[in-house]
């Protein structure tokens, strides 16, 4: 198996996904299958290949530092689950 149940549990915590024990079991198997399949890439000999930072062979794309109008708060928060008209509202963020 390419991934353990504990690893899946940790990743789900980092992704803020709450998984039931049954889901953990099922997803551990599924993620393992995905990773096993990706192992195929490990069979390629890359010893003579330069690591690349980007898939497109282009560099130095820049824009001028100029301000353009922003969205209105109403537009920006149109799809927010909750807002008070000024700010997005989210469950209390404490202790940080």
């Amino acid at each position, binding site marked *: 198996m390419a991934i353990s149940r504990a690893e899946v549990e940790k990743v789900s915590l980092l992704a803020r996904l709450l998984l039931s024990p049954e889901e953990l079991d099922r997803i551990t198997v599924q993620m393992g299958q995905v990773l096993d399949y990706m192992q195929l890439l490990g069979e390629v000999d890359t010893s003579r290949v330069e690591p690349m930072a980007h898939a497109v062979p282009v560099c130095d794309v820049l824009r001028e530092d100029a301000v353009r109008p922003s969205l209105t708060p109403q537009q920006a928060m149109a799809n927010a689950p909750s807002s008070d008209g000024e700010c997005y509202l989210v469950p209390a*963020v404490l202790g940080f």
Partner: protein
Amino acid sequence: MNQPYDIVIGLEVHVQLLTASKLFCACSTRFGQPPNTQTCPVCIGMPGVLPVMNAKAVQLAVKAAVALNCQIARFTKWDRKNYYYPDLPKGYQISQYDLPLSHDGWLEISDPKGRVAPRRIGIIRAHLEEDAGKSMHDEAAGRADSRIDLNRAGTPLLEIVSQPDLRSPLETRLYLNELKLLLGYLGVSDCNMQEGSLRVDANINLHVHTAQGKVPTPIVEVKNMNSFRAVERAMEYEAQRQYEHWQQTGQRLGDVSKQTRGWDESAGITRPQRSKEESSDYRYFPEPDLVPLTFSPEQVEQVRNSLGELPAALRARLEATYGLPPYDSDVLVNQGRALADYYIALAETCGDGKLASNWVQQDVLRTLNEQQATIDKFPVPARELGEVIRRVRLGEFDTARGRTILAEMLASGQPAAAVIQGLGITPVDDSALDELCRELLAANPKIVAEVKEGKLKGAGALIGQAKKKNPNVNPNRVRDRCLELIQGM
């Protein structure tokens, strides 16, 4: 210092770059606007949008890195730092991980009061990244929700990571002062801590001296320090706390994972915060939406040539050219380039660098303080004040009269010559002074006799009488001339 340990401190400083627009979109970076009025689909992380790098942000970052004596990377790329927090709309921050735009530099610190020797503090790296938004929670109002303002999300930041080279809270503050001054001179950042454009996190531990050698204690990261003074106090507190903790537990570096503590300004202590996610938990990976950047040696050289005179060089020049002590050059340079330029013009006009420095520190800075103003708002041009100081230097009138003239220039906005004339101040020439002194001596035989016996105090009374007869006389010249005449009697 006889403390049984060395303090080891490294700083992570984030400064906001002085661009008009954000790092990846055209929203304004202006501070203090109503919440969520400076956002767009890019900076609030809508699906399908693409970031485009701000050329000015790159330019300012490279400028700062070169001034910090860093190596500029020939090739630099962008990475995603993944974490979930409500003020980070994309769920990741675009930052730089393994190929930062600069690395391995240094900043020289010095103490004008000579408490620590000048030395170089290493810079590990300086890289570009975007800021997050702001979350607010009003506990007093007992609200169930936190409020999120995304105006700041996507603002360009330069993260400057120092080596753990700082050895005391004082050195830490000196480093921050010098860094802020340097970035101000470069026009890279205004480094305003109140507006959050400079933020400091500190990593600190101790090397405790024991019979078995030096023992390192666990590293603690201290956050939430809102002024340079707060950083200094937090470091003082934390060093003492860690020493006591070591005495109680004997815990060494590696025994426990890195702890994060927050500085409580009013209580004057640090408190534990939630444990930091391990570096690998950020699951960095290359940012596919931004292409890499390259810098040629010629480009870097061009930036180096555009830096202008930096604070350390300017201090050295003021000391060499105008004979200033380090304390004076430090005070003048630390006020910013505009004040240093004002001082230079003053020194050139009046012909005495130290005298000009005294006037700037005692009179100009005091006036600016009183008016809560900066030097560009100071109404008296340097050549006008310089002329007044020049005449004080030549003994045409004394410092007190010079001050009266400056006060009148500030009040009326008139040039020096007009004010001097208006106050009826005319130089007293040598023959008039001579005549006055002879009159005084003739009228005060008792004082003359006293002075002859060596009681020089009596000369003071002569000065008082002289000022009554002619307010324009210079007291020092009256005194000197009278003593001269008495000696010849």
